[in-house]
C-alpha cells in the first residue's frame, strides 16, 4: 500500500497547500491498518476485563484464580509464590471476609477454594472446597444435549447456565466485599457487553477442536498408552473421554459433555480430610446433589493438576490409577462398566499399563503445549518494532508453554531428545524477549526448535 503523497509536488502553490493537506489526510487514512476483526477486538476486551476488572469488589479479578502463567488455574506450589497482599488471600486481610469466605489453610496447602453451591443460608456448615478448574478448550468441552455444563459439577453458572452467565455467579461468590453480597454495594454485576467479551475471551483459550485419535505417536510407551486408552475392553477411557477430550461416546459419535458419579468423594485419605479442617461432603450436580461431576478434557490434564474436583490426587499417574481402585469400581460408573464386562471387571490396569496411559496423556499435553507455543511464536514473529511490547507478551506466554512441556515430559521420563529441543526453544525465546533488534529472527529459530521437538514425538502435524 502506497502512503507517500507524490502528487502534491506537481500542483501549483497555494492550491498545492490545500491539496497537500487533503492528500495528507487521505494518505494518512490510506496508511491506517485495516479495521480489526470485531471478534478479535471483543476477545482483547475480554482479556482486559478478565485480568483487570474487579467489578468494584474485594480486589479480585477472574485472573486472581485463573492465572495465565499457570494454565488458567492455580495450585499450592504457585500459591506459595504469591505475596501476602495478593487478592487471592483477601480472607486473610479483609476483616469482613475472615469467616466463612475461604479457608486459608486449605487454600494454601491444597489449592482449594470455598464455594456455596447449595445456597448461602448456612455459611458455617454448607459449603464445598474445590480446586480451580482451568478454562482451556471450553469450546470443545461444555456443550451437551441437555445444555451447557460449566464448572466441576456442570451447574456452575446461574441464570441460563451458560458460559456467558458464569461470570455473574463468580463475581457474587468470589468478588464480594462482605458476606452480604449486595449488588451495587459489595460488587457490581458485569454488563451485557462485559459478559459478551468475557465469553469470547474464554472461548478463545486453548484448543478450538477435539483431536482425532489415534495419533501417529513415536514414543513406545505413549503409543501403548494410547492403545489402552482407546480399548473399550481394557482402559475404557475413550467411552467418557472421547479423543481424550471432555465428551462422551455414543456409537461412532460425540455425545457431548456429560456428568458421571465415579466415586471420587469416596476416596479414603483425601488430603483436605487429613488436615482436620471442616470439609463437608460435596454432592455434585444440583441441589440436593446427585453425586455426579462433570467430565473435564484430558489433553490439558498433565500440566493442570492436582486432579478431580477436590484436588484429591496430585499426579497424572495417580489420576489414572484412581480408576483401578475401590472408590471407582464401587461407584455407579464403575459398577455399570463391570456389569457389562464379560469378566465382571470395571477397570483393571496393572502398574505398567497405568504408566503407559499416563505417558500417553503427558505426550498429548506436551504436543498441545507445542501447538500453543507455535501459535504464539508465529504471532510474535509477525509483529514489528512498534509492537514489541505485545510481541514480548506473546513470547512470555510461549515461554510458559514451553516450560510446561519440558516439565511434563521430564516428569514422566519421556522423550529426552524432544526435551533437549524444547530447552533450546526456551533459551531462544528468552533471548528474543530481551532483544530490541533481532527478535523476529530468534523467534523463528525458536519455532524451528519446537518443530524439531514435535517431530520426535509424533509423525506429521498433530
Amino acid at each position, binding site marked *: 500500500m502506497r502512503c507517500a503523497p507524490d502528487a502534491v509536488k506537481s500542483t501549483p502553490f497555494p492550491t498545492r497547500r490545500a491539496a497537500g493537506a487533503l492528500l495528507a489526510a487521505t494518505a494518512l487514512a490510506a496508511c491506517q491498518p485495516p479495521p480489526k476483526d470485531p471478534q478479535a477486538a471483543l476477545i482483547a476486551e475480554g482479556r482486559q476485563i478478565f485480568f483487570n476488572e474487579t467489578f468494584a469488589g474485594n480486589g479480585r479479578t477472574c485472573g486472581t484464580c485463573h492465572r495465565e502463567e499457570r494454565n488458567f488455574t492455580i495450585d499450592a506450589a504457585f500459591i506459595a509464590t504469591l505475596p501476602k497482599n495478593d487478592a487471592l488471600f483477601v480472607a486473610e486481610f479483609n476483616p469482613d471476609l475472615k469467616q466463612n469466605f475461604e479457608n486459608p489453610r486449605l487454600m494454601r496447602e491444597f489449592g482449594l477454594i470455598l464455594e*456455596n*453451591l*447449595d*445456597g*448461602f*443460608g448456612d455459611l458455617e456448615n454448607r459449603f464445598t472446597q474445590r480446586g480451580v478448574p482451568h478454562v482451556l478448550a471450553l469450546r470443545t468441552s461444555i456443550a*451437551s444435549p*441437555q*445444555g*451447557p*455444563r460449566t*464448572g466441576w459439577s*456442570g*451447574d*456452575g*453458572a*446461574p*441464570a*441460563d*447456565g*451458560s458460559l*456467558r*452467565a458464569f461470570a*455473574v*455467579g463468580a463475581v*457474587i461468590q468470589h468478588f464480594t466485599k462482605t*458476606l*452480604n*453480597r*449486595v*449488588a*451495587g*454495594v459489595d460488587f457490581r*454485576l458485569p454488563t451485557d457487553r462485559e*459478559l459478551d467479551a468475557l465469553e469470547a475471551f474464554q472461548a478463545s483459550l486453548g484448543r478450538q477442536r477435539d483431536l482425532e485419535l489415534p495419533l501417529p505417536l513415536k514414543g513406545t510407551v505413549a503409543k501403548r498408552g494410547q492403545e489402552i486408552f482407546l480399548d*473399550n*475392553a481394557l482402559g475404557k477411557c*475413550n*467411552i467418557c473421554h472421547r479423543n481424550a477430550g471432555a465428551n*462422551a*461416546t*455414543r*456409537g*461412532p459419535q460425540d*455425545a457431548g459433555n*456429560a*456428568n*458421571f*458419579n465415579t466415586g471420587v468423594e469416596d476416596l479414603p485419605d483425601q488430603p483436605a480430610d487429613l488436615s482436620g479442617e471442616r470439609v463437608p461432603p460435596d454432592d455434585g*450436580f*444440583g*441441589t440436593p446433589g*446427585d453425586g*455426579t461431576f462433570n467430565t473435564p478434557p484430558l489433553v490439558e490434564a498433565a500440566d493442570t493438576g492436582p486432579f478431580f474436583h477436590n484436588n484429591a490426587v496430585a499426579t497424572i499417574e495417580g489420576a489414572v490409577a484412581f480408576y483401578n481402585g475401590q472408590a471407582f469400581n464401587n461407584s*455407579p*460408573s464403575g459398577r*455399570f*462398566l463391570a456389569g*457389562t*464386562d464379560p469378566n465382571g471387571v470395571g477397570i483393571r490396569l496393572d502398574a505398567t499399563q497405568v504408566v503407559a496411559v499416563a505417558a500417553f496423556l503427558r505426550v498429548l499435553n506436551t504436543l498441545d503445549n507445542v501447538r500453543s507455543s507455535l501459535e504464539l511464536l508465529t504471532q510474535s514473529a509477525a509483529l514489528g518494532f512498534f509492537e514489541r511490547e505485545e510481541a514480548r507478551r506473546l513470547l512470555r506466554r510461549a515461554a510458559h508453554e514451553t516450560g510446561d512441556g519440558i516439565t511434563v515430559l521430564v516428569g514422566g521420563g519421556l522423550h529426552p531428545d524432544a526435551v533437549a529441543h524444547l530447552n533450546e526453544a526456551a533459551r531462544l525465546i528468552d533471548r528474543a524477549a530481551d532483544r530490541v533488534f533481532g527478535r523476529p529472527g530468534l523467534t523463528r529459530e525458536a519455532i524451528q526448535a519446537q518443530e524439531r521437538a514435535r517431530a520426535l514425538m509424533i509423525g506429521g502435524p498433530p
Partner: protein
Amino acid sequence: MRTLLIGAAFLIASVGVPPAYGQKATEQYIPLGQSPGVSGKISSIGEISGTDARERTLTLAEPSGSRTVKITEKTRIFLDRSKLKQASLTGTFDDLRKGRRAEIKYEDPALKQVADWVKVEITQP
C-alpha cells in the same frame, strides 16, 4: 460392535438425567430483571396481582396480560432487597404479596405453568 453398545448404554445410564441448568445459589443475589439470558427473554416480570395459598398459585400481571403459575416445593423464592442495599434472602409463599414486583422463571419456558424460581422485589424494610 459390543463395545460400542456398552459405550452407548453406559452413557445413557450414567449421564445426569436432569437437564443441565444454572445453579440457583448465586441467583439469589442477582437483582430482579438482571439475570443474564433469562430476564427479558424467558422470564416474566410484573406485579403480583393475586395468590392462592390452597392451590399454591401466583398470578402475575405483566404488560402482555395476566399469568397464573404453580408454586411447588421445589420453587425457590428469592427476596431481592438490593434496592434497600441489604442482603437478599430466600423467602416463602407468604412473601408473595399482592402489589409486589416479581420475576418468574419457569421450569418449562414453553409451557410457563410451573415456577422454577420467583424473585420478589422488597422496597420497604
